[in-house]
Each structure stands twice: as C-alpha cells, then as structure tokens.
C-alpha cells in the first residue's frame, strides 16, 4: 500500500516558467514532509521541507505548499532552470514514529526545456 503518491511520472516545462510537482499522501499520521532531488547515478539531495504546522515554506526559487485537509503537497520552482532537470521525490514522516522512517513517493522526472 503506497502511502505517498506522485501520480505524474514525468513533467516537461519551458525554461523560465513555473514547475509544479504534486504529491498526495494517505496516512494522517504524517506531519513532516520533504522534497528530494535526484540526478542520475547520484543519491537523493535534500531540497526543502515543511512541518504540518505550516502551510507554506519558501527557499529561494523553491516553495512547498501543504494542504492538510486534502493530504496534498506541491513543490513550485520558479523560474525553472535547465539545471532543475532531475527526478523529484516527495517523502513523509511521522513524529509519533520517531521521524526516522521516511516514506517516499515514486518520483517525478522533471525536464526543463531550454
């Protein structure tokens, strides 16, 4: 049973435009969410996170939005740059479980078109 879902396996966006990556979760115990970026033959790299006490967190070109009632989060990248082309993983954890157990989605491959 996949508790974290990324329903779009791929996304193509023109350079300079906004990229929006989506993630849905089913377990209401999740209270901490992260986005990771992964290039081929490398490990996932932490990008940005959000706690369930917030609905938005911003870091430079990256903003994560959390809608707890819909159990949905999204990552906005603006403006998109060619170096943003990678696979993006959404992940979630629950503080009541000790937060060590991250549950990952299956990833969305983002391609930025120059």
């Amino acid at each position, binding site marked *: 049973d996949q508790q974290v879902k990324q329903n779009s396996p791929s996304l193509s966006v023109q350079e300079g435009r906004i990229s929006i990556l989506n993630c849905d979760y089913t377990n209401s115990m999740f209270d901490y969410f992260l986005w990771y970026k992964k290039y081929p033959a490398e*490990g996932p790299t932490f990008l940005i996170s959000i706690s369930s006490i917030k609905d938005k967190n911003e870091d430079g070109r990256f903003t994560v939005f959390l809608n707890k009632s819909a159990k949905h989060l999204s990552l906005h990248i603006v403006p998109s740059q060619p170096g943003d082309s990678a696979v993006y*993983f959404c992940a979630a954890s629950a503080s009541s479980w000790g937060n060590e157990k*991250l549950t*990952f989605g*299956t990833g969305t491959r983002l391609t930025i078109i120059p």
Partner: protein
Amino acid sequence: DTAVSQTPKYLVTQMGNDKSIKCEQNLGHDTMYWYKQDSKKFLKIMFSYNNKELIINETVPNRFSPKSPDKAHLNLHINSLELGDSAVYFCASSQRTPNTDTQYFGPGTRLTVL
C-alpha cells in the same frame, strides 16, 4: 569533502555469494540508514541505526545484516545473494531531533546479481 560516502559504487556478483557494502558519514550525525531502490525506482527504507543501536528493521530477509561499528559507519552485509537483490542501495544519515528528520544520502551502490 563527501558527507556520506559508500563503497563500492558498482558491485557485480554471482547468485549465492556473500557481499558487503560500506557506508561512512562525516557529518557528525547519530542516525544512519540503508534504503533499497528497486527496478521500479521505489525508494524504501530497510534499516536504521541510532548511536549503533538498531531502531528500524523493515521486513527484510535475514540474509541482510547491518553492522554499525561506530556511529559514523553503517555497513550492509548480504549473504546468499539472490537475483531479486539486484537494486541500488543508498546509505543515508541524519541528526535525530524531536520534530524533524532531514536525511542526507550517499551516492548509491548499484548491485547486480547474475
């Protein structure tokens, strides 16, 4: 300086063999992890150690045995390798906090069992 390193990067071996993957982190973190990314690109936690103590053991065959000689190292031993063990294995580390858990990943070890 590499924060989380793994050796080897590639490992090709025959069915039935025993092999080890090493992981080291120089971030001063107290928690380390092993993840498996299968052919469907699904990243799933296998084990977690905090200060050399096992805290997460997901349903993993007992052919897989993690060993943590100190909190900077977490090695993965796999006995009697099977074809289905072919995957990319990622090591990660984090500093355990009450409310958040940002994990930092190594570059991965691609294991191919023939």
